[in-house]
């Protein structure tokens, strides 16, 4: 029993260190604060996949009562620890799709599960096959590729639209320069290859 407790403490302290290391990378003034605009990068770089709305919820929770434009580490740490711990405990590991192969987009539908206590949906990694399905949904004619305009339209007009900059950056990586087409299967596997996990 006490051993369990010890190891749980060890896990928490390791999670704390991880959060701190990521936070420190953006703490340019070394005063345990970061610019609120970089919080998304920090949270996501810790392996979480929130959408913009969910991110705002988290920021609202950790921001000062009078927002200063900066987030303090003391505020960030407990929230982020909770997030990462819940993710570790509550969610099946992404490498074992034990939930059974999801029917097309079914895990996508309850977009507002974030209202429930806990963050595990917000921060659950997106499996590669699910991502591919999303692209396939957009590729109505099942051509195996999307056209530049198609992808741009969906990404800048639907959901939480990309900025011009985000769009250009995505296209520069996604588009086949000779054909001006997005072969999304190649794109997805190229991008997930970079993922260390």
């Amino acid at each position, binding site marked *: 029993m006490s051993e369990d407790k010890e190891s749980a403490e*060890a896990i928490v302290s390791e999670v704390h260190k991880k959060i701190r290391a990521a936070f420190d*990378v953006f703490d340019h003034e*070394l005063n345990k604060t970061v610019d609120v605009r970089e919080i998304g990068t920090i949270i996501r770089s810790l392996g979480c996949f929130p959408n913009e709305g969910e991110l705002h919820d988290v920021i609202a929770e950790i921001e000062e009562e009078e927002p200063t434009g900066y987030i303090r580490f003391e505020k960030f740490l407990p929230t982020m620890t909770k997030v990462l711990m819940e993710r570790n405990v509550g969610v099946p590991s992404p490498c074992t799709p034990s939930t059974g192969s999801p029917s097309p987009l079914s895990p996508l539908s309850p*977009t507002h599960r974030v209202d429930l206590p806990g963050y595990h949906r917000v921060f659950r990694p997106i499996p590669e096959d699910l991502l591919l399905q999303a692209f396939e949904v*957009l590729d109505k*004619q099942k051509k195996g590729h999307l056209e530049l305009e198609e992808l741009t339209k*969906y990404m800048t007009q639907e959901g*939480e*639209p990309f900025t011009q900059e985000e769009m250009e950056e995505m296209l520069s*990586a996604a588009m086949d320069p000779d054909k001006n087409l997005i072969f999304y299967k190649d794109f997805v596997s190229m991008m997930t290859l970079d993922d260390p996990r």
Partner: protein
Amino acid sequence: MGCGFAKSDQLKKRDRETSLLVPAATAMRAALLIQRWYRQYVARLEMRRRCTWNIFQSIEYAGEQDQIKLYNFFGYLMDHFTPASSERNLISHIFRENNICRNVDWERYFCYKSIEVPELYSGPHLSFPITCSNAAELVEAFKNKQQLHSRYVLQLLGETWRLLRILPNISQISTCHSKEITICGDLHGHLEDLLLVFYKNGLPSSEKPYVFNGDFVDRGKDSLEILLILFSFLLVYPNDVHLNRGNHEDHIVNLRYGFTKEVLGKYRLHGKKILKLLQKIFSWLPLATVIDHKVLVLHGGISDTTDLHLISRVDRHKYVSALRPPKRTRQNRSGMIDSDLEDDDPTSKPVDSSRRRVHSLTHSSSTGSRHEVQRRSLQGLNNRVTCSVEEELKERRRQAGLSQSYGDLRNSLANSDSDPDSGELLESYGDEWKQIVDMLWSDPMPQDGCVPNDVRGGGCYWGPDVTEEVLRRHNLTLLIRSHECKQEGYEFCHNRRVLTIFSASNYYEVGSNRGAYIRMGPDLVPHFIQYQANRATRALTLRQSVGRTERSALRALREKLFAHKSDLISSFQEYDPENTGLISLGHWACAMEAVLRLGLPWRVLRSQLVGDTLDGMLDYHLWFRELAITEPNTELSNASLLETMYKHHSNLETIFRIIDTDNSGLISFEEFRQTWKLLSSHLQTEISDEAISDLAVSIDFNKDGSIDINEFMEAFRLVGGDLLQNERDPH
């Protein structure tokens, strides 16, 4: 903007066609998922990019610190060893640089007239006084990879020296409506960047004044060409081209960072003369430029004691190397007094007798006590340096509130001599010297105050309050400085009162950063022009460029890991008392920082450095094997010697180059042995004669029994290419 509208019109047309195909709700969910995923991906890239930057910067600054420690050690040897001791002899010449530079002698010494330009020479020709078309031809010639004949080089440098001597320490210049001033930061031998600036902005002329803010040389491969171009424009337009000295315009710094090697490689016959002349020229470079009495431009920065009036009065050329304060007089062994000062300078006459030397001679009369003193103060020095470094890095860099005072730093930089009289002697130059070091070496920090710059090892960190105070005191509005690489090429800090400008793009690695220059008119509002010299990088996606830069950073880091292998292993073993060969990743991160002290976010870097783990446990022996560094091809049995060599690669090269007094690039076996002896006393570790002999045997000697420094250093590189001197990709 116009084209954006056209695009979206097009999109709307397509819209109507495609929206019929995918049900809106499904499309939205799919888009959301892709956006969520992509934004996470970009965030991860951004984190990697920042970490890469941290790696490069940490390694760069650790190298500077190393350099200064080594230099302090030499200074220490000079002060504490008898003039006849062999260690002193080997290095004394670096402190005695100007003894052949007295006007009469050195005019003869540097005489270029005897050097014939052969008819076969196809490079550019210069005529003196130099003209603007000469200067433009030089630019063109260097663009086409031609070399300037050594006769012209020497002549150009001689003329430059003559001109620089009459320039004030601080150049006062003014803008007017027709003349915007262009300000460039560090170039570091990146000729490509200078050419690009000229291409975009035009060559210097009386209509187009320029300020070049120091660090023209080192690191890049065309430092000399940059100097020759800048000097020739300076000669043509002395009122419109302004060069400020940087911390790399220093012959001691050049030993480590490549400029010495570059010159000797390009001018085998006359390289040594060129270097001597440059050493002198560097000491005569002006220290700062003030625009319209309002904007101060200097290389590093300021400190709480910066006083431009004092600076305008110093004899700047006494500071041949800013790393060490000059002495009033020195006596070399032949009894000749060598002075750093020119004969035409009335203050140059020796005033004090060399009490200092006498004092250390008395020490040496009793050998025992001399060694005791040596050990004690060396350790004191090392401890002080290590302690402060440790503290500094623990809080990462720039933490204010260190207990160490500036005085401590000054003492440790000057030397750790505790002789009561030495202080007195230094006193008169101490303040001046500190002013100059602060100008050349300092960096701004976000906190108020002024603390020693322990990360670089020289100068200070100054805060916004110091900026306010110094600008107010001098009635200035803006400080423009360089000295630090910035990803965008420029950066404001201190409430936009301090502006950093850096003009060497791709400084750490292709794609690592943009370069920039400033244009400024009479309103004194800076306008920035950014660029990236390498054509290929502009086409890279964020992912590709992060990946590429990261690989190179990790390679440099792996080199560090490998060099500290035995320390790391023993640190890992402390976390592994049962000797299972496994440690947790948390312990791994702790051990990494404890040994390497680079202040890096190891937990973030973990995924880049550690491959497979067994249930979160790392097999550290296996990990070292998998770091997959090609070991050099030698049968050297002494692993610890090998490790020392990797760890102190740059120090070793610096000592080699110092010992190679005739700059031939070759040293004898005896000198080779002496180098190691010096290194081992610097590191306070034993390196046996036997191990050194082994090492000497394992490498190829030239037939005459000498060792080629370049070949030797190449043979013992862990990974091809020095971190900061990477060859550019050909494309």
